[in-house]
């Protein structure tokens, strides 16, 4: 069976950051682990009707939130590094 999840992608300075509200259960584990403390509850509701999450532009696209999510509800893609200077 092919399944598709609807992502909500935010383009941030350092990367493309996607949450899949249909997977997010609002546990908050990611929020705690974000090194930049840039994740917060979102108005977009997750699968259980609880808030999902979203980052602000502090995000460094490190992918930790993706890593710690037990539901694979986050996907982070770093932007290719622009040439320095």
């Amino acid at each position, binding site marked *: *069976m*092919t*399944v*598709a*999840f*609807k*992502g909500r*992608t935010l383009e941030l300075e350092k990367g*493309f950051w*996607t949450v*899949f509200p*249909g*997977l997010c*259960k*609002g*546990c*908050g*584990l990611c*929020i*705690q*682990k974000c090194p930049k403390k840039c994740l917060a509850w979102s108005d977009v509701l997750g*699968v*259980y009707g*609880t808030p999902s999450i979203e980052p602000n532009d502090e995000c460094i696209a490190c992918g930790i939130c*993706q*890593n*710690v999510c*037990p*539901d*694979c*509800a986050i*996907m982070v893609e770093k932007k290719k590094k622009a040439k320095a200077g």
Partner: protein
Amino acid sequence: MSVQPAMPKSWRMDTKPHKFCPGCGHGLVLKALGMAIDELGIQDRAVFGCDIGCSLLSWDFFNVDSIQTHHGRTTPVITGLKRANPNLIGIAYMGDGGGYAIGSQHLVNAAARNERITAILVNNTQYGMTGGQMAPTTLPGQKTETTPYGRDPEKTGYPVQGPEMVAAITREGSYVARGTIANLNQLKGYIKKALQNQIEGNGFSFVEVLSACPTNWRTNAEETWNMVEKEMPKFFKVGEIKVPGAGKEGQENG
């Protein structure tokens, strides 16, 4: 197709979101396991056995042939399967109650017989599925439904040292480690080694995982991480405890 979640290839998409509670450590352990299966390329010959305990919720978790067994009985089911068809890669996935309490005779004896299977035991310091009773792993002072005033080690002992026990009764050839959901890459590494050890036919492989049960712990995300990263490691040492070939032991203990 639009951007899709970075789930392990071996996860079964159409049963997601999975049935574990928000913030449940089982999801993370199964993520590490899924990645390990992917990286080893064994999706076609792995057989996933899950216990009764919250692990039962994973009976249709993977795109891997799976069998939901009885409480504590995943080790013998997978043992029987592996004995019958050694080409399969048998994974016995269980909770701390299933592995250290009701199924401990199976764990201990499968280990002693050096069964070529991989056992993964999720330590969440209590019985999740039944609503949070004491487990052999419950921490001193921890309140559970059957230790409402906190676990008193004078009355019920200290948290069981599972991997240490398994290490004590296995010989050369077995792999024993304790990982944590707080370090998923390390955990994936341990699980991979545990599977690799089976693939190579060396012997019994066992990984305990320090996990989280926010529902029965009644913890918010911050407290959950604190429990996993600060409290549990005081009683459970993370690391590899036995690695095959790490040092030749004599086969006699005389």
